[in-house]
């Protein structure tokens, strides 16, 4: 008997017991559905994570200031002043493999206003080449340069969303805004960037609501808590993307000496974050694989159960087929094809179910989900393999039945 005919016959015999076939496939439907839903959540989370890590810059290493606890602040500051321009110069001079260094200071403004509109905003003083290091794209105008930096120029580049809030749809270039009591002239507007605020405990700067001004201006014109560290972040651009962890170790050693062993800074290596993310993802995939494996195993047991019942119920049919010339192989194929068909149909229904769940989750929990073709292929493939495997034993039992006995069976 040809396989195509066996397949058609299997569909026929499955539709003859529609409810039972449906119940037999449910295990596989839910198994595959769960696998696809979970994989798509995992893939969505991963792609989001990768995007965020990229926004830190894979070719960068970041040094972030870590404010000591209130109680020991004074004591700490007697030993170390915190992250400062001195550190940033030392890193550029002494650490091999460093291409550029950009300092960044965050100002916590009590007011940001322009044209009488008051808005909430993040204000950063940054070095001129920070734009390259943080991959900031300009929509309009220019970024301030090293001359502005030397001159302590009162200029600013603003994020897109903030520009809209403060200036509406008019061009903000050449207009002024006031941060605390310092007037700044807008020279550029940033393109829309990533909106996420933090990833795995690492704060990401969202550029949409930001105001950037030269770091020198920020340090000179704004009053800062004398006990706070002068800089909030130093971005280090590497010569070699792969060297992140090595450079980070050297920087750590250097800063440790400069800060007299006080840990008032923290190193962030996007490269390492990426690696860590991959490890997390791998672990997630393994756990997922086990859960999926168990649910598909349960599905397989369901199929085997139904197939054993089917073989028993159709003993006479098997006898008839054997009497008119079916070989054992023919009977074996017939039942294996039948369980294959059950699992294939269940797998396909499971794909639909899983995609639906992924969509529902994406819509209701606001989680990003991503249904990858790989996930569909793997889950259906495993389901079909489970179907065939769990059909083999019942089919073999059917094939080994004695024709005389099975003809007599009622």
């Amino acid at each position: 008997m040809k396989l195509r005919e066996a397949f058609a016959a299997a569909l026929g015999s499955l539709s003859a017991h529609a409810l039972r076939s449906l119940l037999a496939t449910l295990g596989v439907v839910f198994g595959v559905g769960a696998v696809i839903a979970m994989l798509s959540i995992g893939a969505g989370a991963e792609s989001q994570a990768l995007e965020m890590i990229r926004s830190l810059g894979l070719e960068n290493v970041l040094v972030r200031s870590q404010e000591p606890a209130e109680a020991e602040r004074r004591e700490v500051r007697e030993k170390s002043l915190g992250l400062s321009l001195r550190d940033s110069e030392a890193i550029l001079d002494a650490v091999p493999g460093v291409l550029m260094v950009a300092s960044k200071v965050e100002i916590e403004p009590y007011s940001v206003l322009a044209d009488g509109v008051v808005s909430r905003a993040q204000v950063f003083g940054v070095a001129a080449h920070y734009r390259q290091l943080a991959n900031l794209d300009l929509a309009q105008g220019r970024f301030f340069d090293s001359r502005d930096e030397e001159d302590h120029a009162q200029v600013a580049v603003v994020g897109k969303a903030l520009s809209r809030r403060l200036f509406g749809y008019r061009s903000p270039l050449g207009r002024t805004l006031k941060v605390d009591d310092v007037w700044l002239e807008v020279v550029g507007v940033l393109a829309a960037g990533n909106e996420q605020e933090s990833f795995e405990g690492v704060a990401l700067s969202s550029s949409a609501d930001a105001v950037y001004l030269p770091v020198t201006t920020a340090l000179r014109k704004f009053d800062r808590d004398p006990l706070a560290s002068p800089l909030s972040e130093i971005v280090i651009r590497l010569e070699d993307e792969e060297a992140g962890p090595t450079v980070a170790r050297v920087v750590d050693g250097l800063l440790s000496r400069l800060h007299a062993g006080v840990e008032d800074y923290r190193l962030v290596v996007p490269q390492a974050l990426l690696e860590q993310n991959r490890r997390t993802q791998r672990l997630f995939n393994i756990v997922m694989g086990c859960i999926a494996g168990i649910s598909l195993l349960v599905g397989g047991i369901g199929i085997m159960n139904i197939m054993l019942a089917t073989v028993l119920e159709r003993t006479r049919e098997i006898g008839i087929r054997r009497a008119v010339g079916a070989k054992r192989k023919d009977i074996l194929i017939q039942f294996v094809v039948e369980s294959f068909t059950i699992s294939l149909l269940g797998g396909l229904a499971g794909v639909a179910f899983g995609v639906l769940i992924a969509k529902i989750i994406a819509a209701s929990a606001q989680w990003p989900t991503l249904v990858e073709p790989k996930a569909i292929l793997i889950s259906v493939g495993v389901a079909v393999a489970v179907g065939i495997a769990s059909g083999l034993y019942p089919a073999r039992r059917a094939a080994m039945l004695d024709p005389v006995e099975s003809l007599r069976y009622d």
Partner: protein
Amino acid sequence: MTELTTGSATGQVTGPRTGPDGPDGPDGSDAARRGGDPSGALIELQEVSRWYQVGSSQVRALDGVDLRIAAGEYIAIMGSSGSGKSTLMNLLGCLDTPSDGRYLFRGEAVEKLSDDHLAEVRNAEIGFVFQSFHLLPRGNALENVELPLVYAGVPVAQRRRRARRALERVGLGERMEHRPSELSGGQRQRVAIARALINDPSLLLADEPTGNLDSSTSEEIMELMDELHRGGTTVILVTHETQVAAHAARRIELLDGRIRHDSAASG
């Protein structure tokens, strides 16, 4: 040892080729095969026994049966239940193999055939008709009739054509698309007969073909059997009804696993 040897099937002189002529060994069996064939016997049983193990005791369903059947014969195998006639039919139909003795079908030793080979013999050479019809409930008449051709690997179009012809031959040209549940008993048995005939078998084995039918339908089915026999098919009926057996030219009676009477041997 059997007392009864059936002798020749159609009266031709062939000495009983029984006796212990070295049951094993390829030489001996080849000689026996060549010796059994020239007479043109379709079937030759030599001291065939079939026993079953039931618990610790052995049940002898057939006990040293010798039998020759020529092509084209019309035979009724009779006997009460437990006489071994079903066992004999299963053996003749290659559904089962003897525990001891030799069974030559067209000169070929059946007991030496593999399971696959037996399936091929059933498929190509033997048509079965059963008391309870044994049709597949889900298939219609056509699908039931073409089943043997499915396993013979005949292409679909040809299968359909031959199944139609076989159904027309048994007078069911009008009900080809009906399922067994939509057919009367007599019609079902006609479908079964069409299925048995579709491969032009050299042997038609009917096990109580009228057992589940009323008397007038039985008569119709038996007329169909007669007709098939007249057309040259070898027909073996297994029955306990004398009216059915009366249709056959030769009657073999079984008792306790042995042949008690063979009309061909006695006259």
